[in-house]
């Protein structure tokens, strides 16, 4: 385990003030104050985002990119403004490189269909890692099956770190694509993606990063990373469900075939020939989740105002504290001890199944995730059916870590 590595301290978060923005954090669960530690599954929404959704729905709603009436223009402007905010949030070169999707899963499927089905063929190889969420495995398996391509998997070591030597050794002239997670949802490992991308690019291989767990916790700069695609979900970023983005480099997006056909993604349609619209609209068929996109825009405004560096620093502090506290508990093992970790703490309690842990912690108001976290290859790697996972957000406190620790002691008491 690594000691905290704070060098220059970014500005301290006023966590109590931040918590006041989140109505749900005032809730009781069965008479106990809610201790929400399932942020890697979905994080909570501040009043600012809720208010933005209400404002859109009560004063701005209309379909976009269509009519000339005022509401449609207002809605279109708000939707495109949200795209601009997202582009700025990840430092995309151009707004049209940001495609609204329903979430990370759809973003990855878009790349599989739009890029994979066009450019990957029989005998080609796709590199994934052991740490992938099922949503970054299954689409590629479907593609491999359809095309006769092969999936190669980067192994991890016992701490949950990707083995970079093994990654580099997987490359050969048939390697056509790399799809890896930026941060592991099951273990929290932050992967050395910048070096991985550089290695792939030196061989002409494009790279997709699954940023579902990274975007909420780290400042993302897609130009600095150099990735060809970056995907994440709004609901893990204090935004609504049903929205996410796919960032793609403009030239690659332009070379791809559309994913879904329908309205908005075309310039002209006759039964003889249909001309597709330009990016990003080419990939946004049909009426998009307009409110959700605008809500996500408000969420990134909210996060940016706090500052992603300050968020990352506070979460690192929580992780270090929680790691130290859990390490002191006999019978509790932390799964995933990579040197570079996001605020995800997977653990098992000797003799107690994670599902029983989850049910009993809930009794104390503590919400954690239990199960395989949609990352069964990770569980198999550690020979576990499941773990319990506490995942922290910037609005969590060390007092909440204490509640988790007390809850774990209770579980152990029940099961002695």
């Amino acid at each position, binding site marked *: 385990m690594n000691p905290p590595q704070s060098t220059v301290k970014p500005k301290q978060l006023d966590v109590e003030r931040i918590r006041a923005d989140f109505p749900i954090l005032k809730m009781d*669960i*069965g*008479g106990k104050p809610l201790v929400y530690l399932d942020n890697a599954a979905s994080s909570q929404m501040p009043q600012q985002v809720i208010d933005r959704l209400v404002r859109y729905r009560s004063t701005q709603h209309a379909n976009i990119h269509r009519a000339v009436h005022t509401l449609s223009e207002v809605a279109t402007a708000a939707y495109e403004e949200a795209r601009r905010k997202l582009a700025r949030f990840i430092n995309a070169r151009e707004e049209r490189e940001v495609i609204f999707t329903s979430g990370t899963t759809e973003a990855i499927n878009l790349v599989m269909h739009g890029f994979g089905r066009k450019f990957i063929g029989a005998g080609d190889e796709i590199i994934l890692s052991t740490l992938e969420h099922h949503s970054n495995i299954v689409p590629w398996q479907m593609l491999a099956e359809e095309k006769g391509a092969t999936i190669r998997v980067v192994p991890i070591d016992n701490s949950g770190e990707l083995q970079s030597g093994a990654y580099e050794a997987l490359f050969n002239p048939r390697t056509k694509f790399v799809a890896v997670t930026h941060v592991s949802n099951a273990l929290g490992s932050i992967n050395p993606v910048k070096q991985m991308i550089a290695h792939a690019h030196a061989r002409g291989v494009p790279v997709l990063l699954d940023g579902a767990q990274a975007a909420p916790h780290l400042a993302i700069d897609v130009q600095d990373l150099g990735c060809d695609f970056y995907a994440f979900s709004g609901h893990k970023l204090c935004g609504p469900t049903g929205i996410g983005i796919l960032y793609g480099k403009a030239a690659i997006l332009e070379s791809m075939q559309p994913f879904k056909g329908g309205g908005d993604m075309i310039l002209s349609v006759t039964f003889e020939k249909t001309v597709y619209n330009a990016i990003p609209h080419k990939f946004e068929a049909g009426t998009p989740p307009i409110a959700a996109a605008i809500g996500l825009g408000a969420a990134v405004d909210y996060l940016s105002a706090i500052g992603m560096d300050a968020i990352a620093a506070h979460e690192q502090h929580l992780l270090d504290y929680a790691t130290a506290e859990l390490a002191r508990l006999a019978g509790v093992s932390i799964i995933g001890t990579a040197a570079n970790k996001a605020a995800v703490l997977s653990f098992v309690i000797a003799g*107690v*199944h*994670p*599902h*029983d842990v989850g*049910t*009993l912690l*809930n*009794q104390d108001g503590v919400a954690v995730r*239990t*199960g*395989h976290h949609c990352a069964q290859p990770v*569980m198999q790697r550690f020979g576990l*059916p*499941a773990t319990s996972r506490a995942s922290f957000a910037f609005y969590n406190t060390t007092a909440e870590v204490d509640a988790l620790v007390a809850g774990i002691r209770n579980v152990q008491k*029940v*099961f002695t």
Partner: protein
Amino acid sequence: MHWWPGFAMFRRFSHESQRLMADPKALYQEVILDHNRKPRNFGRLDHASHRAEGHNPLCGDHLSLALNVEGDSVAGITFEGESCAICKASASMMTVAVKGKTRQDAQQLIDEFRAMATGELDCGSAPHHLGRLTVFAGMRDLPTRVKCAILPWHTLHAALNSVASTSTESNDDPMNAPIGNA
């Protein structure tokens, strides 16, 4: 009966969400903890006449059930596998309950247990044969855990009907509970 077998349970959960906050400590009663610690009839059964595997892919619970049916009677029954305390205790108590029973009586227990766990059978008012198995009645207030308690019974149903493998997520099985996720 509604066309969807889980309708009654769905309706119950959606209308009584307040009850989801019920005290789960009541669930982890000593009898359940005891069967979890010292599961009865745990292990292999040589020369079994019926076997089935039960899986709950959502939480990773896995159970192998072996039966020795002699004539019309469940003469022997054992289970193995890895699962949460609720599932293991349910399996252990199930083996105790059905051992020596006729196939018909075992099937009746399966039906009653399922009805109790999904809230369709109120053990306080309706007649039943569940005995100590009523410690699982609280499951009906924990929709995400119902499947853990039902899995062994689900698997017993499969074994008695010579289905080799069953899953809480298979759509063709009427035992399938409709909600709950990991």
